[in-house]
């Protein structure tokens, strides 16, 4: 069937299948999980490639009314447009990589894979669904396994504390967002939570400005907690340091983006006045992300904490893009989200593997690992270079777009963002590379083994995706742009709106015989 539901159901079927396999058949379980996540990834890739770029509106849509009781009618409404097609692709890829990387899980293997599959299904559902109720439901579906996984398979002795902290913090955030959503639902009075219906309804009789002014912050700061906006970010590094590799990959890479996606999908387009009032505040807080988290990342000895904090700094870029309220800015944000998902997935996979080999994540104790682990070293260098915004990787394309997009409206923030992204990020990452890979070999880690052939697959997969979107971000931006224009439609000055379609037309001109640029 050509509806997006198939990409949600595949992980669910895999989970059910896994449940049927008896617990002690470890190898069969692993194979089934890999198979399941592989075809999820394949479905996601096929949807992404079959998506018609540059076309407004929804594709692969399917609508199933679920509850129609008086004013409350909820419908399972799924569809793909510029905003979520990239994220669905990336969820598939990172999910597949997460399954591949969790070969070192020994206890309760079956439960682990079932939880991982439900996380993937939750993330897919959250991105695909257009009905806010289902978005919320899938988001929570994806959040619960995080708690269990950190608690059971986590690392470090304070993992219970970390599990509680991350879950309570996120639930608090989700709760505020829920309050906001309910208030919005009541204020809008459109008797439906479906974004499309809401948009049509609000176009006719928009929300009163005062209502928007107090609903918008609830929704935005609620979802921002899920993402890790500055003052609400302290759950992320702690949570990721204690989480097992697969959970950290999925949560840092994918679930964090659900908050941003919701802001872009629901908050900014449907409450333009609220956006106008509150986004400058978000922009200022994003500065906290950019500077504060980057500096904290600088201090970290543990690699996971370093990656966790630097991923928060990247989120600063995403928020900056949203706050710019320009087509380029929002496209940049979506690009940063996609690129960062891949980057976070890759980085946590790398740190996970490093921990299996050296038994520790304390970078100061390591040194000179490049000699023994050449492939891993190269992947680490590429990963960390991508993290400090090296062109050729998708992250640079995203960050550059965000910088260009928000320069006109927020020049000072762009300067700070550029400073944090280019300099502080680079210092932190290079210190890590210097500590881990270069320098004389430490006898303590003499029997460190490089990645076996099978174990290289996830890294090669993620890196090639990052390079593909880095070399040719056009694939992504052509898909994202129409949706981005829709998001900021209310804020576009007529001139900007007019100018927008001009470029895609020119874009249609055939690219020169530049090899290495795959068709789209």
């Amino acid at each position, binding site marked *: 069937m050509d509806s997006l539901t198939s990409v949600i159901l595949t992980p669910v079927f895999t989970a059910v299948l896994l449940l049927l396999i008896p617990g002690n058949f470890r190898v069969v379980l692993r194979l089934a999980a890999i198979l399941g996540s592989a075809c999820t990834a394949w479905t996601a890739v096929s949807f992404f490639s079959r998506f018609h770029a540059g076309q407004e509106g929804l594709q692969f849509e399917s609508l199933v009314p679920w509850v129609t009781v008086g004013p409350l009618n909820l419908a399972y409404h799924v569809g793909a447009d510029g905003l979520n097609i990239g994220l669905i692709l990336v969820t598939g890829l990172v999910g597949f990589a997460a399954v591949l990387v969790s070969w070192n899980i020994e206890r309760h293997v079956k439960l682990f894979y079932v939880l991982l599959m439900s996380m993937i299904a939750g993330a897919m559902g959250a991105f695909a669904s257009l009905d806010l109720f289902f978005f919320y439901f899938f988001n929570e579906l994806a959040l619960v396994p995080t708690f269990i996984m950190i608690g059971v398979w986590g690392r470090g002795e304070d993992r219970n504390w970390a599990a509680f902290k991350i879950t309570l913090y996120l639930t608090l955030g989700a709760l505020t967002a829920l309050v906001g959503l309910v208030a919005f639902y009541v204020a809008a009075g459109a008797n439906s939570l479906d974004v499309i219906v809401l948009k049509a309804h609000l176009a006719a009789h928009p929300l009163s400005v005062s209502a928007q002014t107090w609903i918008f912050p609830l929704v935005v700061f609620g979802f921002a907690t899920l993402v890790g906006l500055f003052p609400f970010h302290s759950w992320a590094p702690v949570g990721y340091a204690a989480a097992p590799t697969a959970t950290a990959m999925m949560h840092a890479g994918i679930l964090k983006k659900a908050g941003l996606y919701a802001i872009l999908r629901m908050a900014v387009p449907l409450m333009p006045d609220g956006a106008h009032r509150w986004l400058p505040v978000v922009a200022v807080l994003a500065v906290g992300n950019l500077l504060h988290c980057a500096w904290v990342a600088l201090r970290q000895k543990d690699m996971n904490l370093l990656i966790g904090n630097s991923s928060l700094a990247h989120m600063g870029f995403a928020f900056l893009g949203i706050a710019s309220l320009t087509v380029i800015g929002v496209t940049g944000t979506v690009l940063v989200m996609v690129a960062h998902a891949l980057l976070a997935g890759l980085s946590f996979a790398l740190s996970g593997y490093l921990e299996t080999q050296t038994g520790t994540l304390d970078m100061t104790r390591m040194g000179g690992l490049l000699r023994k682990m050449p492939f891993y070293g190269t992947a680490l260098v590429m990963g960390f270079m991508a993290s400090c915004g090296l062109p050729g990787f998708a992250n640079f394309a995203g960050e550059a777009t965000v910088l260009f997009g928000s320069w006109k409206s927020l020049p000072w923030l762009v300067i700070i963002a*550029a400073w944090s992204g*280019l300099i502080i990020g*680079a210092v932190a990452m290079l210190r890590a590379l210097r500590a881990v890979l270069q320098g004389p070999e430490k006898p303590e880690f003499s029997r460190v083994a490089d990645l076996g052939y099978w174990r290289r697959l996830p890294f090669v997969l993620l890196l090639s995706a990052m390079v593909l979107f880095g070399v040719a971000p056009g694939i992504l931006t052509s898909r994202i742009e129409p949706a981005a224009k829709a998001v900021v439609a209310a804020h576009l000055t007529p001139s900007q709106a007019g100018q927008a379609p001009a470029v895609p037309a020119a874009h249609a001109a055939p690219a020169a015989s530049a090899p290495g640029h795959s068709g789209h």
Partner: protein
Amino acid sequence: MEHAAVVQHAVESGSKIQDLAWAILILPLVMAFGTAVLTPKNRTLSAAFNISGVVVAFLLSFTLFCVYGGQSVDATPFHWLPVAGLDAEIGLHLDALSTLMLMVVTGVGSLVMIYSTGYMHEDRSYTRFFSTLSLFVFSMLGIVLANNLLMLFVFWELVGVSSYLLIGFWYEKPSAGDASKKAFLTNRIGDFGFMLGILAIWSLAGTLDIAALKAKFVANPALLGPWAGLAGLLIFMGAMGKSAQFPLHVWLPDAMEGPTPVSALIHAATMVAAGVYMLCRLFFLYTATAGWPAALGFLDGVSAATIITCIGGFTALFAAVIAVQQDDIKRILAYSTLSQLGLMVMAVGLGAKTGDASASMYHLVTHAGFKAMLFLGAGSVIHACHHEQDIWKMGGLRSKMPKTFWTFALGTAALAGLPPFSGFYSKDEILAVALEANPIFFGVGVLVTVLTTFYMSRLVLVAFFGKPRGEGADHAHESPSSMTLPLLVLAVPSAFIAWLPLGEFLSGHFKPGHATHGGDILFGPFNHNPIAAVFGLGAVLFGFSLAYSLYGKAPTQDPLSAKLGLLSQAMRNRFYIDEIYDGIVVPLHNLLSQIADAIDRWLIAGLAVRGLSGVVEIAGRALRLVQTGSIQTYAFLFTAGVLLIVLLALK
């Protein structure tokens, strides 16, 4: 070859040129990844592939240079980031500057690669060296051919990363690891300014395409209005990072940690020249009237170009002074590169007044030639003396390594600026421009020439003449032909390139149709601007005689350091700039991150989160008091509840 014929011929072969340009750009990349992925284990094959890639690129660029007509050609761009309002694309721009630079990069690149087959022979990660070098050549070609600012920035960073990989090639050495980190970060600070400059220009001018930008500037010089000066300086910051100008120069001397071929290719000929090349390409920015925003009102009189000239001049002088007291052969050459770059940047700044920066480009080309040769010569010396780099442990290599000696002497003469060799003509052009624009900088130029001749002849006298001082130098023998051949090949251009009408060809680019000085080349400078030529020559002779008087008699240790005492100590430690940086910049960052970490740990994690959970806990503890366990209390609460309900019901 008459221009007219060539021009007409080039037009209908336009598409052929584009494919040629694309081929030149992509070839090294294909070779780099091809060898890295396909033949990592096979040494000779991967070396052969990479070298052939660059050599073919050189041949293509040579044909391109011949086939290419006068006017600039733009290859159809490939839309890299098609977003509304942002025309970021990867396209190629071919004109006098870029075709010449193509030849320099690929030429020096191929020679260095051939040289390194010998130099890196016994190194374990041989293939990784060659693929990284190809990656570097690819990114450098990207800069040369870039037709828009964002693409320039992209390849700017790629060059930064490949220099990081190459400096840190011997990653076991902790000093190499630190040096590569330092190089990348210093470049990044420059790139930070560069990015802000691009953003400023993009938002004010509306386009990223250099040709379009140039057209807009020609049409309306005050396009950027008050921001012109600041934008110009920010763009210059990018050049400062890459061409190691004063505040950001600290990484170049440490970059000598990399293998010598790397130093030759990257830190002598190509990468460091990228900054100067970029300034020449965006020259129109600096010729425009320099306005300043209100905040920087005090700079109103001064134009961006003058600031650039000052920085260039200061770097030249500063580096030359330090070079005088350095002992490591590669460090001397590194500081000499620094000072020559300072000269080029100064020439660009001065050229902004006369509207012609061909002097700096001319010097860039000649400098690439002889400096690469000097570095390769130094490499073969180090290779011969078993990785001995201190000149005071060498000596008497003249008899042991004749070929290396003669090429090295030739390079030194060219660098110092003896007339028949290329250095004299390009430096003379700079002195001429300086004389015409601003006599103070003419003095700086002459002083730098004196110092250059002094430290270069000091190096040659100490290293090649007298008796061998170290056991390494004792049984040094001539390097294998794979190393000396490139030296000989490089000797030709570094000596005689000035005999080609390069100066005229380049100034044609900056001032179309205004032929400066035709006629014979050899004695051109003497009859066009005799003062500059005479002073230049005088400076060389004076410097040489000074050096000879001190080092002629092959002393065992440096007499000058005794004379200068404290000053020589400062010069040896590069005026403690590194220590100052480590003393200020690094602790500042650590302090900031400590504060951030403290805030994160106490304020946010502690206060907010613990506070919240603390409140919940206290509330819990308060409620617990009610559960006293005695049935009486429960009964009492029950009755109180009933009473309340009854009262409420009655009301």
